[in-house]
């Protein structure tokens, strides 16, 4: 089936079985391997991407259901100056250790910050509760997201 969607800001049309997982289409057909697979059943959140701005597990989304929609992956996070504030915060604040969970956390955090630019600790923890990290104990991830929120606030007064 021909599936057309906007991927990281660019319209793409691919030919894929409609019940192929969005995850496999991204990693295989489209060669975007930044989205990771940790469990394949919606538990770990490593495969998180944004579908119409909302975080979803790409391992549980049928590619055919993405027709006509927008998808954002970790590869679409950078801006013209390079790493976004959020990505940068994960580097400087210790949000990534082994890094396998990181793209998923970045996508969940991106959606959280879009709706709530300066979330409190509890809101951050709830926003990333669908992402499992076995390395960090979460604290540095929470700090990275908080830091990114603050950075943005300090640059966009009001």
């Amino acid at each position, binding site marked *: 089936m021909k599936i057309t969607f906007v991927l990281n800001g660019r319209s793409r049309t691919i030919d894929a079985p409609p019940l192929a997982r969005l995850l496999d289409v991204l*990693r295989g057909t489209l060669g*975007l*391997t*930044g*989205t*990771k*697979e*940790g*469990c*394949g*059943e919606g*538990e*770990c959140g*490593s495969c998180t991407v944004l579908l119409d701005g909302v975080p979803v597990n790409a391992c549980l989304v049928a590619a055919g259901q993405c027709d006509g929609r927008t998808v954002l*992956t*970790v*590869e679409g*996070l*950078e801006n013209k100056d390079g*790493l976004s504030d959020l*990505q*940068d915060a*994960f*580097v*400087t*604040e*210790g*949000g*990534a*250790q*082994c*890094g*396998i*969970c*990181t*793209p998923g956390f*970045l996508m969940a955090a991106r959606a959280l910050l879009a709706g709530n630019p300066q979330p409190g*600790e509890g809101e*951050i*923890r*709830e926003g*990333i*509760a*669908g*992402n*499992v*990290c*076995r*390395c*960090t*104990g*979460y*604290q*540095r*991830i*929470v700090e990275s997201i908080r830091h990114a929120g603050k950075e943005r606030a300090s640059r966009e007064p009001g």
Partner: protein
Amino acid sequence: MALVGRSVPRADGPAKVSGTAHYVDDLTRPGVLLGATLRSPVARGRLRGIRRDPAFDWAGVTVVTAEDVPVNVVALIEEDQPVLAADEIRHAYEPLALVAAEDPVRLAGALRALTPEIEPLPPVLTVADALARKAQIHGSDNIFATYRISKGDAARAIARSPVRLNGTYRTPHQEQLYIEPQGMLAFWDACGAHLQGSLQCPFYVQKGVKRTFSLDDAHVDVTQAVTGGGFGGKEEYPTLLALHALLLAKKSGQPVKMIYDRQEDIEATTKRHPCEVTIESGCDREGNLSAVSINVLMDGGAYVTLTPVVLSRGALHAAGAYRWDHVAIEAVAVATNTPPNGAFRGFGAPQTIWAIERHMDRIARELSLDPLLLREKNLLRVGDTTPTGQLLKESVGIQRCVEEAKKASGWDTKRATLGRAAPVRPVAAMQRQTAPGGSASRKARGIGASVFLHGAGFTGSGERKLKGRVAIDMFRAPSEKKPRFRIRTASTDIGQGTETVFLQIAADVLRVPMDRVEFATPSTAVVPDSGPTVASRTVMIVGSIVESAARELFARIEYERQKRGGSFDDAALRLLADQDPVVSEKTYEPPAELAWDDATYRGDAYPVFAWGCDIAEVEVDLDTFETAVLGFWAAHDVGKAIHPLMCKGQIEGGTLQAIGWALNERLVVKDGKILNARMSTYIVPTSLDAPRFTTILVEDPYSKGPGGGAKGIGELPMDGGAPAIAAAIEHATGIIRDDLPLLPEDLFAARQTGT
């Protein structure tokens, strides 16, 4: 400004946050086939054959069985484990055959079209059955290893002590659950075997490949792909997976990629050893400890893997962070027909430290002493000796850890006002408030502590035998005017930050900015054998080799500068004009005074210990027995924090694994099979389960540690979390648990039986 001691941005960070870091499943090669494993459905049996469904179209499918394996052993400590079962099957999920095909549908079909013909044998599933020799499954007695440690005369001293207490403490399996499942990409060419994979120890894998295929070093190249966590789980297991992928690649003549899915990973790969520890102690009524006798019993699973080393480390940590004049420790590991247990962060120590810490709480209870006060009274100090007779000469920061953790957590007040270790308060005293949608549960709070140590580096003479090596190259990059440096080491970065820390150490010694130093991808073809990435040895041991290699290189440049003038860079470039690259390779020199006797288990077990005090505050719902961790304070003596932020990240991550082991994780094993090999049923903590950590880095430097005194701390944080949580639950509810885990069902059951 010095880099060591500063939390510089992680060197591998940008690739990891942009999705460009390549893990094994992100790699491919032209013509790559996918590989899969046919596994045993039974715990023990005899393999009579493997039937291939003649109706299946086998074209393009490669099948490998034991007959295809040149030397059918996995070369680890012992060679008891076959690459593919040939005759006796010793555990469920044991690999029986391999298949490769071009696409996943064909692959799954081929796997289903293979049927193993197995004659089942009665399995030995418990430690008790193994000891009773219900069936003979290893050697003559089913025992993998035994260690004895003794100091003074424990039996006599206990008999003469005014207060004698004993207890038995059990800990279950634990799954590493790194988020990236195991995977390997293999191919052959004229140069020999090539592997890229998710792994901790490239030279372990190389050793196994050399043995099975009778190859030499030059013909086996093992390269680490970016690795998504290991925690010990990718220490020995990747060797087996590498052999499987290579066998398929050899037979098919094509590259082969094998990526486990989560269920296969949980079922087939190694876990933490279940353990039972029995302790008898003697002390006086003021709580001055005198003597302890400890029996450690571990379940090794079906094959030896690393069990003897795990058991040894467990035994060496069993007496805890305390002064005992008399110690007797006996540790035994047995074989059972369950999937092999192996390395997992802490390596036996979390099991025995759980036991001694629970036992310390038992003593405190018996004597009505504050549990931390009892511990403080008996802490090891400089000048004391450990159970192996090791004299502690320096860097014993435990007293400060306890003080800092107490202060930060408000221990004294909370201990006095929370919990009271009283039985559940009567219904009359309950809170009564229900907001719409809310609940009026009864809750109790408590606070608990643990104190622990962890030996850094290999045990005993391990480092002396290993002779770890590191090289640093100075070279000129084509478009650059200044020399660059490259660290070559087999120490892998599996998330802990090896790369960044080594760059910091080398750049400081060489007095260059960090961006002029790079970290070679660990590949056996390129790097010298620095030893495995295990045993909290990377920063302290390998880091010190990096430091000395950098020092030597610096001295050579400095000598040239003094001789012929100019700047440091001028001198470096003059050297490079003669010879490019300039290489400094160093071998680890263990401190000369360290003495260890493997036969008697006496002497300096470790060059130095890292120390820690954990304090947990919990709230237990008295209706549902759910435990929420409200606060967690970890004060750890790390010697010197080379990168404070990553150091804290290690402590927090390790501690949460310990908390998960206590409060969430439970591996259900029945008839030798794992019933909950999924992330929806093997439960690890999420961000909402994790507490906010207060992590305090105590620095009592180790004179021979790199960067001004760093000690290994990779495993330390796994040791203290579980006993601190158990103590806090006890304080809150009065429920005393000697066994892990502490799931709501366990607390409920304990409450019912009044134990």
